[in-house]
């Protein structure tokens, strides 16, 4: 499944509907459903936040292949932003030193099994793979 979304935070309702359609089609369990919503939201909002100059719509793809879910976000007319190279968040820091920034990407990295990033002709493509266990479907 693939769908194009307007580049603004108001697209989130439509994105959640799109994810729900995918989850229903493949009977994914509640835990992975929650995680998939989080992964897609964090990447979408991250793109809007860090690529404000682009006016292009954003493509989100969801695919199930064997025991894997593949999530693909394609963002055009943007500068490179390789999330695989972003600094990690130290979740063990004491409260006084904690910052909210970077938490979303930290969670995405925690929840998926692989992240691939490519950049060509001012287009970023992030491909994430989440491996499902038997209990997840």
């Amino acid at each position, binding site marked *: 499944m693939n769908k194009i979304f307007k580049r603004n935070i108001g697209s989130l309702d439509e994105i*959640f509907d799109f994810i729900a359609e995918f989850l229903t089609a493949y009977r994914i369990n509640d835990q992975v459903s*929650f995680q998939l919503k*989080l992964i897609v939201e964090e990447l979408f909002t991250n793109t809007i936040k860090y690529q404000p100059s682009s006016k292009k719509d954003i493509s989100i793809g969801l695919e199930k292949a064997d025991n894997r879910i593949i999530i693909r976000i394609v963002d055009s007319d943007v500068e490179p932003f390789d999330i695989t190279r972003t600094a990690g968040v130290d979740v063990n820091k004491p409260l006084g030193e904690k910052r909210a920034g970077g*938490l979303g990407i930290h969670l995405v990295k*925690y929840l998926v099994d692989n992240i691939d990033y490519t950049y060509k002709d001012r287009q970023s493509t992030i491909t994430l793979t989440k491996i499902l266990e038997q209990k997840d479907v």
Partner: protein
Amino acid sequence: MFDIILRSKTEILLKGRLDASQAEKAKETFVKVAETCVVDFQDLEYISSAGMGILLMTQKRLSEKGNSLKFINVNKHIRDIFRYAGFDRIFEII
């Protein structure tokens, strides 16, 4: 659909889906909290980092005067995400 209800000065109820598009609405209520407050997650289905950031900033502000947020009725999925984010070390999750 997200809703936040300030039941009293020390009790907040969260409902629905707290995603990035609803974070500002949540923030408007949390900035009013000035003392130790119980946050009831009974009817909250989902939260992302935008909402978690508001909880974190509120906890930091309250802790300066010895107060805190305490979470009750947190579902398993949200509890897992809180653990991945290290929230179980800085919030009391009952």
